[in-house]
């Protein structure tokens, strides 16, 4: 496994490319079979109750629409702090995730809480802007108080084999995540796996992002289909497991897009449990990027507590 610093900082693309191409391949049928087997895991009763609360704590509650407004973001922040008005024991979510210009609104609404403010940046979702513009986008979000930055990689560069460009840009974004008045914003690197050429590419992109300094690797923007398939999440979990074994650094994973039901969330947690284990069963290392998921988690939680479904209108629609 290539893990020397020299490999990654050597000038030019050739060494970097050789290192990434030397990673063991991924057999797509095998990945699919493993995911199908794990999908039969039965998580019920007390285990389900624990898993639902953990999933709530892992949610990055997201709104990424052209029509987003301060009012919408404030409502989302309120929901993040107290997901279920009728059940105060529901924990807050991990973070809210918004566009950079709405970071100040989210920061004001969440001040003093444990809920992070994640901002997509680098000309999300396509990333097709000059590097300077993408860095400026990131700087603005960080300056406004974002605690987490969700950047997109240049898929065009990756698909042409210019791994060096992708690597250097992640490093550059990471540099502008630094903050003079405290901890740097955590960097989540979105691979947009739905635009990459299969699972071998997902593994290469994962290693590239981790070596470039990603705190998290994230599947998707949510704007491209397919988004976070369980197959891709499994491949990325194997990558963070192997990366920690090689370097000692533990990187998080965030599937995002298409995770809508409690069943989807539990399947993700099962993948974590059986691939990388308990060390990742924590919001610091596993997140679920989602918008509609939270209410389904709350409904299933109420079903476990009260024995009845109360229907979607009992939960705020934000």
């Amino acid at each position, binding site marked *: 496994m290539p893990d020397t610093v020299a490999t990654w900082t050597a000038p030019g693309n050739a060494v970097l490319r050789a290192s990434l191409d030397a990673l063991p391949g991924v*057999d797509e*049928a095998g990945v699919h079979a493993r995911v199908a087997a794990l999908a*039969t*895991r039965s998580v019920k009763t007390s*285990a389900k109750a624990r898993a639902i609360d953990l999933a709530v*704590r892992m949610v990055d509650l997201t709104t990424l629409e052209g029509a987003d407004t301060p009012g919408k973001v404030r409502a989302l922040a309120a929901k993040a702090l107290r997901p279920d008005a009728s059940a105060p024991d529901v924990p807050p979510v991990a973070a809210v995730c918004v566009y950079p210009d709405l970071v100040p609104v989210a920061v004001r609404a969440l001040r003093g809480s444990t809920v992070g403010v994640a901002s997509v940046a680098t000309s999300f979702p396509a990333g097709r802007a000059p590097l300077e513009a993408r860095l400026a986008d990131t700087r603005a979000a960080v300056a406004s108080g974002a605690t987490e930055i969700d950047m997109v990689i240049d898929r065009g560069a990756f698909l042409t084999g210019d791994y060096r460009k992708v690597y250097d840009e992640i490093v550059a974004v990471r540099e502008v995540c630094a903050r003079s008045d405290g901890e740097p914003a955590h960097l989540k690197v979105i691979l947009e796996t739905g635009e990459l050429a299969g699972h071998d590419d997902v593994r290469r992109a994962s290693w590239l992002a981790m070596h470039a300094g990603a705190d998290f690797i994230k599947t998707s923007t949510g704007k491209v289909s397919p988004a976070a398939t369980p197959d891709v999440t499994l491949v990325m979990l194997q990558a963070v497991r192997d990366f920690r074994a090689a370097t000692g650094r533990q990187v998080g994973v965030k599937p995002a897009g298409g995770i809508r039901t409690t069943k989807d969330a539990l399947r993700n947690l099962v993948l974590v449990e059986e691939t990388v*284990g308990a060390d990742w*069963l*924590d919001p610091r290392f596993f997140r679920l990027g989602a918008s509609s998921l939270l209410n389904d988690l709350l409904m299933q939680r109420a079903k476990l507590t009260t024995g009845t479904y109360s229907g979607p209108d009992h939960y705020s629609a934000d």
Partner: protein
Amino acid sequence: MPRPLSPADGAPARPAPLGYAPAPESRASVRLRPAYGLFVDGSFTEPGDATFTSVNPADEQPLAEVTTATEADLDRAVAAARRAFDGVWSRTSPAERGKYLYRISRIIQDRARELAVLESLDNGKPIRESRDVDIPLAAAHFFYYAGWADKLPFAVPGVPAPRPVGVAAQVIPWNFPLLMLAWKIAPALAAGNTVVLKPAETTPLTALAFAEICQEAQLPPGVVNIVTGAGGTGRALVSHPGVDKVAFTGSTDVGREIARAVAGTGTRLTLELGGKGANIVYADAALDQAVEGIVTGIFFNQGHVCCAGSRLLVQESVAEEVVGRLKERVTRLRLGDPLDKNTDIGAINSAAQLARIQDLARAGREEGGEQWSPDCPLPGSGYWFAPTVFTGVTQAHRVAREEIFGPVLSVLTFRTPEEAVAKANNTPYGLSAGIWTQKGSRSLWTARRLRAGVIWSNTFNTFDPASPFGGYRESGYGREGGRHGLEAYLDV
């Protein structure tokens, strides 16, 4: 400004495993009789004077009393099969035979949950496997051969009008009870034969449930007869003068004995016997998936699989990495109650089989192999053996040569493809092999040189009714499954 999450934020200081609460499948769907007779000529006889007990290997509790068939019982069963062959089944139109088989497949699907629970109770295998593999595949075999019933002129090249053989005596093992029954009965009936089948003495219950299914399908009496008993009953059945064809799946020792008994009688014979399958992992394999394949190869069905990948041959340059990943993966296997939906490793089928596995594991240690198992508490009652990996094994060790038929993997290494093939073929068996490489040319090069009836590439223990299955050399002869599986039941 919000702070990044830290461990102090009300979360547990150390992340805890998710854990799964117990998720036992209900036994309510299974209605067992206290005692079973034999299924002869379309109805059950009264339980006989001599019976034996079928126990649940997971807790040693009795499940039902089952009759030991006498020689007179076998005479009646073979005579019923002969009458049904001459009088009904050989005169039933091929399309009608197909309809009966389709009906049986659908009833198996309708009763799938009951059959899966019953199979797990009687055999000890995890419900995940009986529910997702054994029972669906058994139904699939009947569906597949139902389709052949009226297409037999295309079954054997150059034989435009093949005829059935007659009465088939079939003896099946305990590792996949209902599935092995399906492998035997579906092609026999599709080709127009009638059968007398004996299930293994430790797992007779799904075969007896299948007898009820034959009644439900209104199969003409005598077309399928189920007789129960131990080895003596099986011996008497296969050497019965009234049978035209013998099909056996089981150990190589018993297979030899049957071959001797049948030799010179004109009775046709197919044998599916033991194996010591090599699972070859090249350095350029997709390693995570190869590790899954190694686990499936040896720990599927507690390793009670004739085609198990019980010898791992791994290229030396990745041996350490592969074994490391394998051990990490095996640590996550969940051993316990076969009826729990999250169980990966169930019970060993019988005390006798457990003793054999323990004996071979002891030999492995004494011969210098390094035995490893994860920290895996075993239940207090029942027959259990933890998933086990032997490293430091050489071709000379008993654990590398003898079929263990349990969850015990022997790890050997090789340096070149030539050495991999030489080691893989260095066994008297020749049933299965696996090849793990991302390079198609290497896979084909290797497959051409392996002496094994079934060779899997980048997968293992994958079964399909359309695919022929069977062995070379001491693993037996004849093929089951696919078009080839019909030939054994046709007079060509």
